């Protein structure tokens, strides 16, 4: 009898423990004092470690921004590297609080995986990287070619769609990580490597002789990449979404890491609302009103992150293109903070 009592008690306590773990993300992150941010295992420009083992990149900057807004310190991030196939399970199960891993926003992912995309922080498209020696200048000349691809990505599906709709044949070799994919290509297992154009630039920059390879101008798909949160936690979803808009709004209003303190005295009402001089946006988000000030002060605005990690000041040197602000001819359109 005693045994039964103990067993039923322990079962009951386990049931309690299971429900506690799914509390809301904001208070969870605050009580831990650290943001668990899922990043890639190494995509140059987005999330990769430098020679000292420090995480750098556009997605890494986004993790830092959220940490700065929520915890007040951009360095309170624990980076958790994820392969493409682990990422959504890890997020849905609560292992990470935020996924910033160059993930493409698609209907299936948004609706069936228990996750929600918070926006787009990089507009990308799928392209091809080939050896110049191959003498190919257009994607339509790749009939019969073998491709190296990374497993579990939208890339695989786009490739099939593109080749079937153009009545061409192809062969695919599928690897687990982007590192292996690049290796297979280097060793000549495939004629071309296909992935998001930004990742191709990264792979190309890591080649022994980058000038010997060319990224074809054809783009065969839309790849809106953005941060992802767990489904069903609207408070956290809002914080992540508006942190992203704040970095964009800062660029639009000309607020940079360097001049943000001076801008606190600005007469411009939209700058005042962004930096929390007026309005209560931060409080409404469940933070304090200086949230966006900290983001810009500690991490910088979107344009600064872009230039440093993927743009003109980085080895990738990818033109802003679609990622310019809306008033400069791009698609980046921060919703008004008011």
């Amino acid at each position: 009898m005693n045994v039964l009592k103990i067993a039923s008690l322990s079962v009951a306590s386990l049931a309690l423990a299971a429900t506690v773990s799914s509390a809301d993300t904001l208070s969870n992150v605050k009580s831990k004092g650290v943001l668990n941010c899922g990043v890639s295992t190494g995509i140059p420009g987005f999330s990769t470690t430098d020679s000292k083992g420090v995480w750098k990149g556009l997605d890494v900057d986004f993790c830092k921004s959220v940490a700065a807004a929520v915890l007040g310190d951009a360095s309170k991030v624990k980076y958790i590297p994820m392969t493409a196939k682990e990422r959504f399970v890890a997020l849905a199960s609560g292992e990470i609080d935020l996924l910033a891993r160059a993930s493409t926003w698609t209907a299936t992912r948004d609706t069936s995986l228990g996750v929600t995309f918070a926006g787009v922080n990089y507009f990308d498209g799928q392209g091809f990287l080939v050896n110049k020696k191959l003498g190919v200048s257009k994607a339509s000349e790749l009939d019969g070619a073998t491709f190296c691809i990374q497993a579990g990505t939208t890339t695989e599906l786009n490739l099939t769609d593109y080749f079937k709709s153009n009545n061409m044949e192809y062969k695919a070799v599928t690897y687990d990580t982007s590192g292996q994919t690049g290796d297979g290509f280097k060793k000549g297992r495939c004629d071309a490597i296909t992935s998001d154009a930004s990742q191709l630039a990264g792979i190309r920059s890591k080649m022994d002789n980058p000038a010997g390879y060319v990224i074809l101008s054809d783009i065969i798909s839309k790849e809106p990449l953005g941060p992802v949160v767990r489904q069903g936690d609207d408070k956290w979803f809002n914080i992540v979404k508006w942190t992203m808009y704040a970095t964009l709004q800062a660029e639009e209003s000309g607020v940079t890491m360097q001049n943000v303190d001076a801008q606190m005295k600005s007469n411009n009402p939209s700058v005042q609302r962004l930096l929390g001089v007026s309005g209560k946006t931060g409080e409404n988000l469940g933070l304090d009103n200086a949230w966006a000030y900290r983001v810009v002060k500690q991490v910088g605005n979107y344009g600064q992150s872009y230039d440093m990690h993927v743009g003109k000041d980085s080895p990738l040197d990818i033109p802003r293109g679609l990622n310019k602000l809306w008033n400069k001819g791009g698609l980046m359109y921060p919703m008004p903070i008011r």
Partner: protein
Amino acid sequence: MKKNKKTSLFSKGFFNNPENRAVIYQIVTLGLVILFTMYLVGNLFDNVEKRGITTGFAFLDEAAGFGVSQNLIEYNDVSSTYGRVFVVGVLNTLLVSAIALVATTIIGLMIGIGRLSSNWLISKLCMVYVEIFRNIPILLQILFWYNVVLAALPSPRKSMVFFEHAFLNNRGFILPKPLLESNAIYIGFAILIACASVFYLVRWSKKRHDETGEEFPIFKVSLSILVLAPLIVYFVSGQPISADYPALKGFNFKGGFTIIPELLALAFALSIYTATYIAEAVRAGIESVPTGQKEAAKSLGLKDHIILQKVVLPQALRVIIPPVINQYLNLIKNSSLATAIGYPEIVTLFSGTALNQVGQAIEIILMTMAVYLTFSIVISVVLNWVNAKIQIKGR
């Protein structure tokens, strides 16, 4: 005595009986285990539902829409379903396991016998082989051989050519594909009949040997039946097998069939690695046969290979088979490391690519585990049956 007979369930006597108590404890334990499992499963599905993740096996009928680099059955990139992806993955696992199982058995047997050779060089070489390959993790070996295969082979345009129609390059080993015409079925019959007649011939010659002691050249005769019968039928029925020859067109070879480098590297690494353990099992088995047996056979004037074949191996097998079963099972499970080099077996393809497209981790991983469990159980049942057959029967 009379009182004792009337013992009811609630009287003290029932619980005082240690046998009854043992039964009750076991029922309670079993009940607790079942309850706990049910709780875990229920909790799992509750949480999955709460997070808005789709469940169920309906995805198996949806079109997958991605390419696979090796498919043994018909597979269409656009229209084939996830169910078919699963079958393709299972077959690819079976293929690499089957190739590696045969190769590793042959290599292991040779190395194991070689280690006991009286020739100093052979026995030391075999020892070096075993010590090197069993002490390096299998994952590293797979990566090493894959990189060696890719680095050593030329690009398609500079392929090595064998017999005009076979090509070896870093896209794989490209061979002519046999095309069967309708008459080819007679060749199939011929092979079946040849096998059956060889089977009876072996039984007959064994019986004759037991009765009269006369030797029959069974090996030469069987071999010629197996080779000649299908060959004669092939020419009589008008050469019904032609070939689809591969040809270099654009980037790659078209036609023929391709053995991809991932398969070569994986099968090679698995056989080389597992063979070291089998070699050790073989050596242990042979050493377990008392030297007296060999000396006795020798003094009867039997030749060395007859001694090995008729005296040593039958007794050694009883020691060899149990550890070899383990190694076969390990080999099949190790084939899942293919995920490191992109060979499309069940783990890479189904619980890798398919899992990420579908996102239903629980169902997909369960199916994958069921595959390995089935393979392993079938192999151990078959080999345990063989093992029981060859054990010394107690008289």
